[in-house]
């Protein structure tokens, strides 16, 4: 079996399976935990609204803290949006998703794709620099932090190796040079498989923890 064939076949299936099973397992590990009844008289019963509000408002820091967190927040937005543009807006990626799901959508303009790539590289490198230089982040960081950074960066790096394809070119069924394409696909599959087991799971856990706190604070009528 050729490497590309492996990446498009069993490796992709395994990565998708790990992604789904890991996500379900991790969420089940939280939701199987008991919830003790709270008999205190609520100040407000709008707890669902409180949960949704916290999920939305935690997208941005309260004004009191902004001066201390603005750069980090903007950088995080930069590489998150960059990743989204690169993954969802590039023609070969859309074709890849279409092959799997049948869904397709219009690609982003070339300039926006290039901006997404730049924001992602600069943002991830800046994040790494801060993690290496900040005493707080050095103390907090563990294997998960370094591995998650590397696993996120890997598809970007391998993607650059196949970027010689025209941006508007469709997903190549039989690329002239299949090894870099296979490496790119395998690095993406590593990201997919790693995500639910690592801090990258904040992609879905953010909704759970923000929602929990938002509901609890809404019940008490406390500002969040």
């Amino acid at each position, binding site marked *: 079996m050729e490497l590309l064939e492996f990446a498009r076949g069993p490796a992709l299936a395994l990565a998708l399976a790990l992604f789904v099973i890991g996500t379900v*397992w*991790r969420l*089940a*590990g*939280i*939701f199987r*935990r*008991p*919830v*003790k*009844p*709270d*008999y*205190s*008289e609520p*100040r407000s019963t709008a707890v669902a609204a409180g949960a949704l509000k*916290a999920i939305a408002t*935690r997208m941005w*820091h*309260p004004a*009191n*803290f902004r001066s*201390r*967190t603005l750069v*980090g*927040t903007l950088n*995080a937005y930069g590489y998150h949006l960059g990743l989204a543009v690169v993954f969802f807006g590039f023609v070969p990626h859309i074709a890849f998703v279409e092959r799997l799901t049948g869904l397709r959508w219009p690609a982003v303009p070339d300039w926006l794709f290039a901006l997404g790539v730049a924001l992602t590289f600069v943002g991830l490198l800046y994040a790494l620099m801060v993690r290496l230089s*900040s*005493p*707080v*982040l*050095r*103390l*907090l*960081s*563990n*294997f*998960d*932090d370094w591995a998650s950074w590397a696993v996120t960066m890997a598809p970007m790096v391998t993607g650059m190796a196949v970027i010689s394809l025209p941006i508007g070119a469709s997903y190549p069924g039989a690329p002239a040079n299949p090894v870099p394409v296979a490496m790119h696909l395998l690095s993406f599959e590593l990201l997919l498989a790693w995500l639910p*087991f690592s*801090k990258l*799971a*904040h992609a879905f*856990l*953010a909704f*759970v*923890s*923000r*929602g*929990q*706190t*938002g509901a*609890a*604070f809404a019940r*008490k*009528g*406390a*500002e*969040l």
Partner: protein
Amino acid sequence: MTGAEQSHPLDLESPRFSIEKPAARYDKQGERADAQRLAAASRAFARDFGRAAAAYMESCIHCGNCAEACHFYLATGDPKYTPIWKLEPFKQAYKREAGPFAWIYRVLNLKRAVTVAELEEWQELLYDSCTMCGRCTQICPMGIDIASLVGLARHAMFEAGLVPHELWAVAERAEREGSPLGATPKVLKERLEWLADDYEVDIPVDRPEAEVLATFSSIEIMKYPASLVATARVLNRSGYAWTVSTAGYEATNFGMLSGNLAWQRDMSMKLIEAAIACKAKLLVLPECGHAYTALRWQGANMLGRPLPFRVLHISEFLAEALAAGRIALRRLEKSVVFHDPCQVSRRGGATAAPREALAALGVELRETRDAGGRSFCCGGGGGVVTIHRADELRYGAFRIKMAQIDASGAELAVTSCSNCRQSFDDGRAHFGWERQMGSLLELVAEQLAD
């Protein structure tokens, strides 16, 4: 407590009331093998570990933003005071023993088992340098309520016998005598009789039936008796049939602060049973921050069913009484800055009530740069003010608050927590600060209109 019997004499002369500075510290209670301590800690941590705590443990992205909200980190710049780091052994234990992928961590030994030595090292981070003020919750992009996790960790630390000397001693005294500062029923009764005579105010005690049960904090009883008089004046003027009960009057709850759930329940149940016994429809909590958390938000859970009476912080009672026209105030032509007690405001949701009372006074309210739910803690909450070895750290945190109060330029500074007040008194003495933190309740009582 290891070694000889400790008497823990109280120090009621200093600006900060606690036990006297121990000549020798005993920060490890009982004689037990390390394995037993770890097992006890693990049991206690697991016992209260619900869905919310699991979600929080899973969600941290190690962004370090919580450090930027913590007064102890801001005061020192020491990364060990990063709030989420204060939970590191417990995060480690959770991942290894209880998380969704615990078996992977154990099989591959990806997380080491926590040791007693680590828990001893973390005692300072969980007690001396955390007031459980919850400011870190406000900044966390994942919305992790770190203060609630510190509360759970303290349960484990207590069960492991790893509580700071002073906090253990005052909690044990509170459980044994009914008050952490020696405000026993006899002392309370004598004080109330003296205050009633001296200030010519009616203070009903142990009425068999009453609409309202008034409670106090031991700091008020022993250090700020004028607050007791103010409570009586306001309640008398409001027209309620009210009483103090010598069976349940002490609202401070060092069971909660030290991490002993059984003692917390005992202390709360005294108040609950006293209110039920006199058929009270309303229990009024004193100017005390953590008393509000203990009874308003956790009291019913100690009882195991909804409380058959309402619970209001005194600032909420004032706001309600003013709105209902039960009391009226003379205007005060002053500018005032209000210090929000964290447990009442940020974590309790009663942020508007004191401002409504201040509005009724007609004062010019000058807020600090960070106010309401975002305000800085005084540095003494969570039992920190009792711990002598934490003094320098606490003063560093207090400096932030002091600067914000000064910057407000207000003529008067008031709060609605006696523990905050004594932290301010102690900080004032330490720094030679000119300002005095007053009581909102006392200010209102002074301005009661005829």
